[in-house]
C-alpha cells in the first residue's frame, strides 16, 4: 500500500470497524446514519413537546381549568417552546442537512465525520439533560426567552438547567455549522459551481453562517445568566449596576437570526420539492438564492422589534420598524419564486407537494401577521397576547414543520428504499392542515380580544371561551395526524412499495444513486454540467421546447458493483460519544456546586479531555488494515 511510505500513526486504541449491526450506530461517522438518528430523535422530542402542548390546550379548553396548576403549567409551556425550537425544528433541519448535503453536492461524507457524530451526541445528551430537570426539582419555568431579572429570581434549579442545557445544545449547533460550511465550500463535485447548487444546499450554507455568529451571542447571555444564578454575579441585577435589558438585547440578537435558522432549511426543502412536482426548474434561481442570502444578512438588523415596548425611544423603534418591514421584501421574493415555479407546470399533487403548498400558504399568513408586528404602535397593542402566539406558530409550525414533513415524504424513499403510502400521507396532510388552522387561527382573534399569553387559566365572561375550545379541538386533530404519520411509517416498513433510485422523476444528484445509497454514496464522482444535472441527463429539449426523455439517459447505479472501487471511507470512532458524555456531567456539576458537584465537574472535564485526547491520538483511518 502506498501509504506505508508515510510515518505510521499507531494509536493507543484501535478503531471500531463494524458498520452494520446495532452497536455500529453508537460509533458511526456515516452522515446518513447520523442524519437518520437526528431526525428520529427530533421526532421523539416532537411527540414529547406535542404532549406538553396537549396538556396546555386541555388546561385552557375551558375557563377556570383545573388540569394543571400554575407551577406545572409554567414548566410545560416553557419546555414546550424550548423543545420545539431547540430539540425539534433545529435538529430536524440538521438531520435532513446531514443526510442530504453530501448527496446533493456529490460528496462521500461531510468534512469532519467524527465532529458530526459528536454534534449528534451532544444534541441528544443536551436534550436529556434539559428534560432530567423534571425529575430534579422542576423544569425551566421562565418562558423560552427567559427574561431577566425573572430568570435569575425564579427559585429551584429550573432556569439553571435552562442556562446550561441551551449552552450544551449550542455546542452541538456550532460544531454542525462549521462542518456544513466547510463541506459545502470544499467538497462539491467537479462542475458543481456555487450557482449550480440545489437551493437546499444554499439555504444550509446561509443557516450554518447564521448559527456560526448567533450561537456565541446566546452563549454569552447564558454564560452571564449562569454566573448570576450559580455564582451570585450581578450582570442582570439592576441594584448592583446590572441591566435586565442587556439580556433582551443579547437574547434577541441571537433570537431573530434563530428564526431564520429554523425557517431557511424548510424554504430550501420546498425549493427542491416544488420543481420536481411541477416538472419545471425553479423559477428565478438567482433571485431565490440571493433572497436567502439577503435574509441571512438583514436578519441581524431587526432584533429590537421584539423590544418595542421596552422604552428604546422613538428613533430606535422607527429604525427597527423600517428594517423589519424591509426584510419582508426578500421573503416576498421567495414566495413569488415558488408560485412562479408552479405557474404553468404539470403539477403532481403528491404528499410532499401538498406539504410544500401548505407551507407556502401558511407561511404567507404568518409572514403577513409578522409585517403587522413591524408597526410599532400596533405591536405595542399586541405585545404578549395570543396574536403573537398565532404569528409564530404560523411561521414555525405552518412554515417550518410543514416544510420538514414535505422533506420527510420526499426523501423517505431515498433513505429507506420504500415509498410512504400516498393515501395515508394525504390523510396526514389534510388532518394536520385542518387541525393546524383550527388550533392557531383562533389565536389571532383571542389575541386581538386581549387574551394575554402565558396565563395558566382565565375566568368566564371574557369572550374567550369558544375560541379556546375550538383551539383545543384543533390540537387533538393535530395529534391524530401525527398518529397517522406513525402508522404510515410502520405500515411502510412492513409492506411499502419499493421505491427504486428515482421514484419522483426528480432533478438533483441524490436520485442518481441507489435507494438507500451505499455507504460511499457515489461509485463514480459525478461530473456536473448543469443546474439540476440529473434532469439534464434524463431529458433533452425538442425543437418545440418540450422535454423528451433520453433513451437510457440518466441511468442510475445498481447494487451490482457493491465493491465501490475500494473507496476510502472514514472509520467509525469511539470518541465522539465519549467526549460528548462529559458535557452534561459538567452541567450537573455547576448546578449542584457542592462537594458532589465539584467532583462531577472534575469527572466531566476528565471525560471530555480523555475523549478529545483519544480522538486526536486514535490511528488514522488508512492504517486500520
Amino acid at each position, binding site marked *: *500500500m*502506498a*501509504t506505508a*511510505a*508515510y*510515518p505510521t*500513526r499507531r494509536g493507543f486504541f484501535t478503531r471500531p470497524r463494524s458498520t452494520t449491526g446495532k452497536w455500529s450506530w453508537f460509533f458511526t461517522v456515516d452522515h446518513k446514519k447520523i442524519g437518520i438518528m437526528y431526525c428520529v430523535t427530533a421526532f421523539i422530542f416532537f411527540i414529547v413537546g406535542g404532549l406538553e402542548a396537549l396538556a396546555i390546550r386541555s388546561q385552557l379548553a375551558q375557563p377556570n381549568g383545573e388540569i394543571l396548576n400554575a407551577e406545572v403549567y409554567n414548566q410545560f409551556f416553557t419546555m414546550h417552546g424550548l423543545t420545539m425550537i431547540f430539540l425539534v425544528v433545529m435538529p430536524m433541519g440538521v438531520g435532513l442537512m446531514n443526510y442530504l448535503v453530501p448527496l446533493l453536492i456529490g460528496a462521500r461524507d461531510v*468534512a*469532519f465525520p467524527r*465532529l458530526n457524530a459528536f454534534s449528534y451526541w451532544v444534541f441528544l445528551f443536551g436534550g436529556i439533560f434539559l428534560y432530567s430537570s423534571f425529575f430534579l426539582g422542576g423544569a425551566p419555568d421562565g418562558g423560552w426567552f427567559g427574561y431577566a431579572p425573572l430568570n435569575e429570581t425564579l427559585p429551584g434549579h429550573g432556569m439553571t438547567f435552562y442556562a446550561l442545557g441551551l449552552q450544551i445544545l449550542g455546542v452541538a449547533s*456550532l460544531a454542525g*455549522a*462549521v*462542518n456544513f*460550511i*466547510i463541506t459545502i*465550500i*470544499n467538497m462539491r463535485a467537479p462542475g458543481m459551481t456555487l450557482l449550480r447548487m440545489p437551493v437546499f444546499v444554499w439555504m444550509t450554507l446561509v443557516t450554518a453562517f447564521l448559527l*456560526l*455568529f448567533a*450561537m*456565541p*451571542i446566546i*452563549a*454569552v*447571555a447564558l*454564560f*452571564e445568566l449562569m*454566573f*448570576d444564578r450559580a*455564582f*451570585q*454575579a*450581578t*450582570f442582570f*441585577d439592576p441594584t*448592583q*449596576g*446590572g*441591566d435586565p*435589558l*442587556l439580556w433582551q*438585547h*443579547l437574547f434577541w*440578537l441571537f433570537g431573530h437570526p434563530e428564526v431564520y435558522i429554523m425557517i431557511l432549511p424548510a424554504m430550501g426543502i420546498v425549493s427542491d420539492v416544488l420543481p420536481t412536482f411541477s416538472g419545471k426548474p425553479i423559477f428565478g434561481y438567482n433571485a431565490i438564492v440571493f433572497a436567502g442570502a439577503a435574509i441571512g444578512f438583514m436578519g441581524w438588523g431587526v432584533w429590537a422589534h421584539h423590544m418595542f415596548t421596552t422604552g428604546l425611544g422613538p428613533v430606535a423603534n422607527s429604525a427597527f420598524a423600517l428594517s423589519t418591514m424591509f426584510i419582508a421584501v426578500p421573503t416576498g421574493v421567495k414566495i413569488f419564486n415558488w408560485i412562479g415555479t408552479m405557474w404553468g407546470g404539470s403539477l403532481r399533487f403528491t404528499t410532499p407537494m401538498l406539504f410544500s403548498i401548505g407551507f407556502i400558504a401558511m407561511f404567507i399568513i404568518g409572514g403577513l401577521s409578522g409585517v403587522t408586528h413591524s408597526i410599532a404602535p400596533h405591536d405595542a397593542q399586541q405585545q404578549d397576547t395570543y396574536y403573537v402566539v398565532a404569528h409564530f406558530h404560523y411561521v414555525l409550525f405552518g412554515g417550518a414543520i410543514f416544510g420538514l414533513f414535505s422533506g420527510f415524504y420526499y426523501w423517505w424513499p431515498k433513505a429507506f428504499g420504500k415509498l410512504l403510502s400516498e393515501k395515508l400521507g394525504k390523510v396526514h396532510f389534510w388532518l394536520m392542515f385542518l387541525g393546524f388552522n383550527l388550533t392557531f387561527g383562533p389565536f389571532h382573534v383571542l389575541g386581538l380580544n386581549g387574551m394575554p399569553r402565558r396565563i395558566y387559566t382565565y375566568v368566564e365572561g371574557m369572550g374567550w371561551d369558544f375560541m379556546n375550545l375550538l383551539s383545543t379541538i384543533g390540537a387533538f386533530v393535530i395529534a391524530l395526524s401525527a398518529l397517522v404519520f406513525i402508522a404510515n411509517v410502520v405500515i411502510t416498513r412492513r409492506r411499502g412499495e419499493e421505491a427504486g433510485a428515482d421514484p419522483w422523476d426528480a432533478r438533483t444528484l441524490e436520485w442518481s444513486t441507489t435507494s438507500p445509497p451505499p455507504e460511499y454514496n457515489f461509485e463514480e464522482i459525478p461530473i456536473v454540467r448543469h443546474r439540476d444535472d440529473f434532469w439534464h441527463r434524463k431529458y433533452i429539449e425538442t425543437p418545440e421546447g418540450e422535454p423528451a426523455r433520453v433513451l437510457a439517459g440518466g441511468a442510475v447505479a445498481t447494487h451490482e458493483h457493491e465493491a465501490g472501487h475500494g473507496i*476510502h471511507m472514514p472509520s467509525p470512532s469511539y470518541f465522539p460519544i465519549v467526549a460528548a458524555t462529559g458535557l452534561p456531567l459538567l452541567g450537573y456539576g455547576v448546578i449542584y456546586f457542592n462537594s458532589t458537584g465539584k467532583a462531577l465537574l472534575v469527572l466531566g472535564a476528565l471525560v471530555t*479531555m480523555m475523549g*478529545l*485526547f483519544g480522538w*486526536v*491520538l486514535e490511528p*488514522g483511518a*488508512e492504517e486500520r488494515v
Partner: protein
Amino acid sequence: MSARAADDRSTEVVLPHHTSGTRAFGWWGMLGLIATEATLFGALISSYFYLRFTSGSVVWPPGDIPKPSLTLPLIMTAILWSSSIPVHLADSGIKKGKQGRLKVGLLLGFILGATFLAIQIAVEYPETLHEFSPSTNVYGSLFYGLTGLHGAHVAVGLLFSLWTQVRAWRGHFDERRHVTVQNFAMYWHFVDAVWAGVLFTIYLSPHF
C-alpha cells in the same frame, strides 16, 4: 511531485489523503472556530461597555473599587504575546521539516502560556479578590467574566499544545503533514490577539 509520489504511481494510483495550508479542511475548520470565538468575545466586550454606560454610575469602576493597576497586566501581556514567537517558529519550522525547532518551539510556547495562566490564577486573582468579587457589583462580574473566559481559552490552548507536542514527539509531523501544528498555531495566535481586546476593555478603558 516528490519522489515518493512518483513511486506510488508504479504500484497504484492513490489520491492524496492529506494536505496542509489553506487546502486542508482543518484550516477552514479553525477559521470557523476563530470566527465564532471572536463573536463570543465581541458580545462579552459589548456587554461590558453596555453595562458601563447604562449603569448610571459616574465613577467607573463603581463603588469603592480602585482603578485596575497596570503593572501586572502589562507584564502578563508581555509574557503572553511573546509566546506567539516560539509557536510561530515551530509552525514555520515544521514546514521546512525541522523537527527540533518544532519541539522546542512548542515547549517554549507552552511554558510561556502556562506562566501567564499561573500568574492570573495565583497572583492576580488573589490580589483583586481582596478588593472585589464577582458578586460585589456588575464591575466585578464583568472583570472576572471576561478575564476568566480568556483564561479558559488559554487553558484550552495549553491542552491543545499538549497533544500537539505528544504527536510531535511521536513523529507524526513532517514538511507535508502538519495540519495539527498549523491549527494549533492559528488558535494560539488568536488567543493572543483577543487579549488585546481584554487588555483594552478591562485594564485600559477604566482609566479614560
